[in-house]
């Protein structure tokens, strides 16, 4: 077990609602797990507790079997982290920034340093001032600092925020590579459904500080064809959909076996006399799940 989050609760002030409430989950070594939720769902608090920056009121987090709350330094030896909009010392070069930061990790060898810098694609600019870096280069530097010295768990907080499409694709590729080549466990916190869907093996959805879903992206996230179908006679539409092997997920969202051809299905529904106002493929199956969960209060 790489990460064990056990019954963690946190409230920042007495009158405020809980930022996290009895959240538990575990992450196996080599897994890429997504932490999904709206702004304010508790993702940042969960990461803060995991990284020892926030003290939980109740519960405990262990990394590689070492409790963050009891031995923060020991637990963090295994972790590298990237935050949204990573801040560096602008007046120092990329190299100097890494040297300042890695000094607090006990230092790294020159060979390891150069290898990581080359791997993230910063070799040509590492001597330049960070103030001259583009957002994408800062993100590469952030990845480099997270990988020095080699961690076992990589924590990514909204890592692709502000990146251009090419940068996003490359970052996703790097995350997969880190797992596949180096065996890293990755915890990816994001509000981008497509990102989590494309990168993660499993997803945890937080809502108002509570865990409302945990499961593999492939099955619980509905790998079936999800369509948004709107009709003024929704009740009479449902039996027709069931005949086609479909299932209602939420208002206007229906899941069908993946082999169904949407245009043929639309033709059949119209032929069966169903008035259809809107017929569209839902952008992602995880989206359907997420929307469904979002429409339900955690208390329910």
């Amino acid at each position, binding site marked *: 077990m790489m990460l064990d989050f056990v019954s963690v609760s946190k409230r*920042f002030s007495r009158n405020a609602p809980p930022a996290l409430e009895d959240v538990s989950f575990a992450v196996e070594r080599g897994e890429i797990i997504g932490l999904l939720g709206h702004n304010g769902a508790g993702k*940042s*608090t969960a*990461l*803060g507790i995991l*990284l*020892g*920056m*926030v*003290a939980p009121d109740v519960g405990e987090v262990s990394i590689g079997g070492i409790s963050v709350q009891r031995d*923060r*330094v*020991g637990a*963090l*030896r295994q*972790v*590298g*982290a990237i*935050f*949204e*909009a*990573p*801040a*560096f*010392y602008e*007046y*120092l070069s990329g190299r*100097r920034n890494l*040297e*300042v*930061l890695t*000094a*607090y*990790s*006990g*230092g790294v060898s020159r060979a390891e340093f150069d290898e990581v810098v080359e791997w993230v694609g910063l070799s040509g600019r590492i001597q330049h001032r960070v103030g001259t870096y583009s957002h994408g280069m800062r993100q590469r530097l952030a990845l480099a*600092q997270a990988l020095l010295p080699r961690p076992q768990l990589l*924590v990514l*907080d909204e890592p692709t925020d502000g990146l251009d499409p090419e940068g996003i694709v490359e970052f996703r590729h790097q995350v997969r590579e880190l797992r596949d080549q180096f065996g890293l466990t990755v915890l990816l916190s994001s509000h981008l459904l497509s990102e989590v869907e494309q990168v993660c093996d499993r997803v945890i959805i937080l809502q108002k500080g509570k865990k409302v879903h945990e499961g593999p992206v492939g099955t619980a996230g509905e790998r079936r064809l999800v369509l948004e179908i709107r009709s003024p006679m929704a009740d009479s539409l449902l039996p027709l959909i069931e005949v086609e092997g479909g299932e209602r997920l939420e208002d206007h969202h229906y899941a069908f076996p993946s082999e169904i051809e949407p245009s043929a299905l639309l033709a059949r529904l119209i032929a069966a006399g169903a008035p259809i106002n809107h017929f569209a493929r839902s952008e992602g199956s995880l989206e359907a799940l997420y929307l469904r969960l979002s429409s339900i209060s955690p208390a329910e």
Partner: protein
Amino acid sequence: MTFLRQLYWELFRLYARKRTYVGFGIFLVVEMLFYFFWTREKAEAGMAKFIERVAGGFDEYFSALTLAFLIVVFTMLLLGVIFVSLVTGDILAKESEDGNLRLLLVRPVSRFRLLLVKFLSCQIYTLSLFVFVGVSALVVGVIDRGWGGGMLVWAPELPRVSLFTWNEGLARYALAMVGFSLIYLPVIGIAFFFSCCRIKPATATILTVAICVADRILSAIPLPAFDPYREYFLTSRMEAWLYLLYQDIPWPRFIEAWGWLTGFGLTGFVLGWMLFERRDVKS
């Protein structure tokens, strides 16, 4: 070794900032202003009168060392607290504001060590500032008055004027600069404490300067009723660096004052650490 490496990189970071050199440059400008003041005809005439009265031999005692001493005292009185508060107030609060702190806090290092590195770097930085001011003032003095002569030290806090030969004066001047920087530990302690709080860096600086100025004003109230309490004021204690320029250094008094001030400064560090240790830093 790891601790020293962390300290080295923290100092590297501090000295790599452009504003460090802007700050040093401002000190140099102010030193030059005081140099011009002390070498104007009227000021020099006043000094000549004073020196002839207390020691005799204006040319002997209005030397590079005496001039440097006068420049340093007034420059530090004007800027010392402000600059030290600025640097120390920034040390954590600015990193917290800029977001750099998060990247440090996820490193496998205790918060105590992180703060200790930063606190010590502030003290070393202050020492380097005093050395810079001391050396630059001396260079200005030597250019103006030449190498050699005696040294005359006078301040209201001194029981009488101190007179030194050139070599003795040089040693005392160097010792006083180091002592002066050590005496600043309470200012570092106060600013560091505020820097550990969840406040803006400018607020940490302003609060520290405000405390020091208020302390100075209260300690300087010339009423006999204040006399028994004067020793409890921070700025009164901080005048202890002048003991190093007494004709015969009263070491027990200096050590007592230095111990008191060090205790005060370290208390600021400990309180700041206790506060910071409990502080939630959200990512």
